[in-house]
């Protein structure tokens, strides 16, 4: 009885393969079976790594690394095992070759994307692994994602004593946030106001005005250095963060204006007309109708302004002289190259990661707007 059932099953399997061949879907079917097998194997390897070489073994060099690596493998294997189990059920019970074919195409694309992902993440992971390395080497000793005896020591060192100068990390952070935040606010306020005029009003010099803002992009970054030095010296803002924020606002303005103009262009004009019929004047309509609708565009503009101020180096390096006004990029600069033969790379890495957190967080939150907003700005620009 059992054997006949098995034989029937086998026969059915053969039938499936034959049918697949006649429909030209042999490759997807084989692919599905092979990947299913591989996923199962990967899951068990991950389990073995996690349990046997991570939790249970005491003599292993790097148990934490094995646990985390194993966890990743288990997750990856389990997800794909389940996916391909479903596909196999589809193939062998319902002769559903179409899903298998789609899945194969998706996975070939995925394999390419994973290679891209590895190249994207390699420098980041390398920095991460260096920052976690507590061994007192000033230079990395090899490639491991989670180094043996990983610790956050480098981070605490950077947080307590970020530079040879007498300045705390908190001070640096506040300075950078003030400059970057000031740039973001300046770019949004000044840029949105100008963009509204460019988008909704007709006046002599409109085109020339729009174009003149693009000129900023063409000026070599070092070119305004000496004249600005003189100007800010005269008004007494050279060594202050306010002067820097104003200077950065001008750098962030071209993008702010073009992006906001594109965004306001895409808003329906009828709403403002309705508001004006209801008794609002131009400015009231701008504040009550346009501004609330333009929040996504303003968010992207603010983010770009923030990034400009957060990572600018040339002006800060040239203008600021008092360590208590230094910004994070200046200190990071002091940790590499000729000035820093003594700084361990673990500390540089920790600092680089800390400095990258705010922009990356910004990006993740605004990503949705970024894709829609920039494309709109681009098409209309």
């Amino acid at each position: 009885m059992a054997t006949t059932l098995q034989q029937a099953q086998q026969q059915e399997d053969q039938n499936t393969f034959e049918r697949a061949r006649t429909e030209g879907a042999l490759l997807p079917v084989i692919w599905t079976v092979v990947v299913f097998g591989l996923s199962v194997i990967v899951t068990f390897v991950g389990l073995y790594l996690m349990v046997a070489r991570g939790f249970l073994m005491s003599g292993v060099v790097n148990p934490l690394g094995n646990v985390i690596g194993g966890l990743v493998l288990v997750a990856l294997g389990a997800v794909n095992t389940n996916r391909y189990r479903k596909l196999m059920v589809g193939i062998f019970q319902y002769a559903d070759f179409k899903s298998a074919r789609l899945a194969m195409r998706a996975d070939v694309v995925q394999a390419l994307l994973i290679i891209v992902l590895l190249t994207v993440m390699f420098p980041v992971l390398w920095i991460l692994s260096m920052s976690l390395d507590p061994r007192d080497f000033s230079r990395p000793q090899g490639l491991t994602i989670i180094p043996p005896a990983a610790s956050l020591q480098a981070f605490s060192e950077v947080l307590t004593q970020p530079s040879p100068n007498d300045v705390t990390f908190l001070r640096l952070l506040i300075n950078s946030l003030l400059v970057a935040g000031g740039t973001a606010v300046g770019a949004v306020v000044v840029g949105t106001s100008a963009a509204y005029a460019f988008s909704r009003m007709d006046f002599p010099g409109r085109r020339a005005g729009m174009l003149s803002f693009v000129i900023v992009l063409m000026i070599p970054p070092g070119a305004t250095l000496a004249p600005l030095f003189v100007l800010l010296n005269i008004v007494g803002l050279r060594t202050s963060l306010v002067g820097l924020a104003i200077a950065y606002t001008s750098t962030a303005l071209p993008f702010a204006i073009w992006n906001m103009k594109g965004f306001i262009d895409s808003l329906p004009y009828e709403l403002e007309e309705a508001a004006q019929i209801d008794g609002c004047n131009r400015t009231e309509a701008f504040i009550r109708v346009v501004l609330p609708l333009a929040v996504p565009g303003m968010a992207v503009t603010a983010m770009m302004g923030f990034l400009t101020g957060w990572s600018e180096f040339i002006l800060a390096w040239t203008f600021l002289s008092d360590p208590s006004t230094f910004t994070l990029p200046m200190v990071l600069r002091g940790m590499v190259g000729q000035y820093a033969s003594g700084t361990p790379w673990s500390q540089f890495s920790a600092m680089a990661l800390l400095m990258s957190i705010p922009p990356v967080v910004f990006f993740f939150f605004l990503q949705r707007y970024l894709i829609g907003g920039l494309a709109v700005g681009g098409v209309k620009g």
Partner: protein
Amino acid sequence: MTTVAQSEGRPTDTNFQADARRRKWRQAGLAYLYILPAALIMIFITFYPIGYQIYMSFTDFTIGNLRIDTATVLPTLLNPPEFLWLENYVRVITGDLALTNYSFVRILTFNLLWTFVNVFLHVAIGIAIAIALDTKDLPNKRLYRSLFVIPWALPSLVSGMIWANMWHDRFGGVNLLLQRLGLPGDTRWLLETQPFVDISIAGEPVLVLPLAFIAALVANVWLGWPFMMVIATGALQSIPREVYEAAEVDGASKWQQFWRITLPLIRPAMVPAVMIGIMLTFNQFNVIFFVTGGGPLGLTEILVTQGFKLVNPQNLFGVASAFNIIVFFILVVLTLITNRVSRATEPYYA
């Protein structure tokens, strides 16, 4: 009676014109008011420095002239820098400067090659990956999209320094990885002075590419393509699916669909991005400055890093001004040319 009242109430011709003109100017006035803050910032932070820079470029401006503050403004005004006419410009072009391996033509061709190779790779990779991410039923799509923007999200100076460490010949990530893979992992990426391309015309170097060019290129491509991917993704989403379905019915292959549908339809969104990309890459200070530092022997210097070094640490203010003015006009011309080219070959703007 009524007709008279009507004709009196109707504005006369000149009255009407004056009214329209007044309304127009009132609106223009409001527009200028909205633009005023931006204009003020631009005038003081951008246009005044350009003007001042032009003045400086004709003089032997020194660090002494820079120390203007309220206490010393009088002696500086009494002792203005000497007027040199075009001497600074001549020195920049002919290379009459005390710098290692300085050649204006070589730096310019290097900079142009750097710009176009970078932007081409940014756009090509960005579009390719945007299309790959557009695949139907692709799992983990959102995960890829959010992780792929990391290089763009990182401050460029941070990525520049990370890549400088990546290419370190003894402890860098690239060589460690090559060693791990059993390949020769002792290439001196940033320090090798022997160029792999070395073209001279009449004894003057025209194009010199050391290994450090590859190092900087990889770093800049790494951090540049996600922006183009985001733009292309947005543009791809605006293409209606029906267009592809219709093409499929007509028997168009995927390859034909890409060249005949996808590319022309995302082009309007890509052209402004490419223009901005060219400007930003031409002036991309942070990558060159932090990855190669212009080395080895100044061979990977681009115009803006060279211009910065003329000021800091060289303190050649007059020469640096002339240099920056030249760079500015080169970029203006380059932008005008690319603008013309992208419009001229553009049948879809109509």
